[in-house]
């Protein structure tokens, strides 16, 4: 069998984690989760991504080494697992590098996605005709609201058909 830490049990076929270790690791993971949410709130641009990834990697290591017993497992299993990250990295980095190189080519012709364009057009049109007084009236009930679907209700708006909400 493989290496064992002196303070841990070893039963039968594989290493056994002690309850103390399990809870300890878990508590660390929870703490790190809180920490990463907190750092994200600080807006540490441009380091935020790096920090978040470092924390995630620490968490991943804790899970892999202890919950997944990699620390006590056969080294080959760990090697196999590491290998997957190496190959995933090759894949991601090579592809990214190429796309990064071509960014200008793509940007030269990238068009605004038609669906977004359409969406913006309708909204801006609708917004042009909105009226705060009417809105407040609707909310506090001083303007009666005919419950016959949005479209018709909106037609009662002072200025216009543009406010007809598109559903």
């Amino acid at each position, binding site marked *: 069998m493989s290496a064992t830490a002196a303070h841990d049990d070893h039963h039968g076929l594989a290493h056994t984690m002690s309850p103390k270790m399990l809870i300890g690791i878990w508590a660390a993971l929870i703490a790190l989760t809180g920490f990463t949410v907190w750092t994200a709130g600080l807006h540490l641009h441009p380091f935020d991504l790096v920090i978040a990834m470092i924390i995630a990697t620490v968490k991943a290591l804790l899970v892999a080494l202890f919950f997944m017993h990699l620390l006590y497992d056969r080294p*080959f299993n760990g090697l196999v697992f590491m*290998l*997957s990250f190496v*190959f995933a990295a*090759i*894949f991601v980095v*090579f*592809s990214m*590098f*190429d*796309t990064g*190189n*071509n960014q200008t*080519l*793509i940007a030269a*012709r*990238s*068009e605004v*996605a*038609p*669906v977004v364009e359409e969406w913006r057009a309708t909204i801006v049109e609708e917004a042009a005709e909105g009226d705060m007084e009417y809105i407040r009236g609707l909310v506090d009930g001083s303007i009666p609201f005919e419950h016959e679907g949005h479209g018709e209700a909106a037609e009662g708006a002072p200025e216009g058909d543009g406010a007809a909400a598109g559903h």
Partner: protein
Amino acid sequence: MSSTTQTTGTATTAVAPQQSSPSENYLNCSKGFLSWFFTLDHKRIGIMYLCAIFVSFALGGFFALALRTELFFPGMDFPAIGSRSPEAVYNQMFTLHGAIMVFLVIIPSIPAALGNFVLPIMLGQVDVAFPRLNLFSFHLYVIGAIFFVATLLGGGLDTGWTFYTPYSTSTDTMVITAVMGAFILGFSSIFTGINFMVTIHKMRPPGMGFFNMPLFLWGMYATAVIQVLATPVLGITLLMLAIERSVGLGIFDPALGGDPVLFQHFFWFYSHPAVYIMILPGMAVISEIISVFSRKHIFGYKFIAISSIAIALFGFFVWGHHMFTSGQSTAMSTIFSAITFSVAVPSAIKMFNWMTTMYKGEIVLKAPMVWALGFMWLFGIGGLTGLFLGTMNTDVYYHDTYFVVAHFHYVMVGGTLWAFFGGIYYWWPKITGKMYDEKPAIIGSLVALLGFNVLFFPQFFLGNMGMPRRYADYLPEFTLWHQVSTIGAYILLVGLVIVAWNLLKSLTSGRKAPANPWGGNTLEWHTSSPPPHYNFENSIPTADDPYDLDRWAWDPETQSYVHVPLTEADLAARAAHPAH
């Protein structure tokens, strides 16, 4: 990890296999369709793969012949089918030819069929590590094949086997069905890979360190590494493609700001290593055959073994050489081109080692060896023409021309399929317990060799002339070589018919096969032909140097090889010169 120590001391305990085959073997121990379709026996699973692969091969081959026939003359000779024009019919046929041959034939051919049969026996084991997973992966293969058939019947597929976006996201054929089929076949391949990897790692018999393994197992191991590392990426790519097509994912679609070239990165990250899934097992088979039929210990064992792993790993760094003209950045193209050449080195090493193995041997020209020699020549051409495609400015000229078509057929058919047939002939007596007729076997091989060269060599000329691939029709100046090529296709067909007839005939009228007809020393030859249900009747022989062919001597009386125990002199010689 495993030890690499020699176990010469225990080798003498190896027991000669029983020459008289037991009445019960894996073929007749139980009967009925279900006893096959739900068997956990790796040998039966291997045979089912073999049958399924042959059926797929026939279908893919039919499409190929139809294509070649259409190309005999310029102009369209196909009929329009329904609302599909003749060109559309042609496009669907070449797509299905490619997809079937790649996903259903070449990739599973050697690992899933021969590997399944031979690998556990070579390891002296009862079965692979996960027999149920093995069966599951066969069932996945069947389901994947059904998806392909559904594609064929339900409206076809016309994207080319490469599924390039945005054509694949905009065409109106059954892309999603086909993609799901390939996805499922991918998982079949992954599970086979996991199974073989674990089996080789954890179930080597006593005395077999990693560097005492037969080279076939090294090839299988390297293949499994690729299957495990590359195939998942194909899976996710195809899934993304299916979703891109159904809801407009936007990642590959330029209309949504995506990048179609990205799809090619995703696709070739799998599909380039996949060509090594295709060729490595072929090389593995050849390593066995060359040694046994030269009656010589394999030369440069360690280099052949390690070169397999090197090919498997380097194969992951070179996918961009499919994209020199695709709009890939110049920097990436340069890097990929440089690394591409590194993959050629291990292949060259293997080639030279095989040749040196033959040097001063006693070369028995039986069918497996004829196929193996054919492999060396055809793969030689296939490999060398690959150099033109790895070199950047010549690739710019050759990309998507018939030169590429000729090149990859030389590698996949001349390489993999030749090794596959060599392997089938080599293990046929073991699998079926019958000897085939030697003469028609050799004639079949030679006719196929002739036909193959007449079929594909002119395509190099067409490539040089600038004939693009995937053309339903061509300009008149290309006519001559297309016609020669089509004639070659029919000669190849004749060769393959002879092969099929020869093998089928042996089932009914073949002589009963001895345990060891060729004198190989890998463990499958230590058991009867066909093997019993649990592979070894009495005792599992201890692994020895798999290429020590002196352990077997020809016995004219039984027309087979019989085991010769190690003498004191052998042991002394070994002590003086450790084999590797």
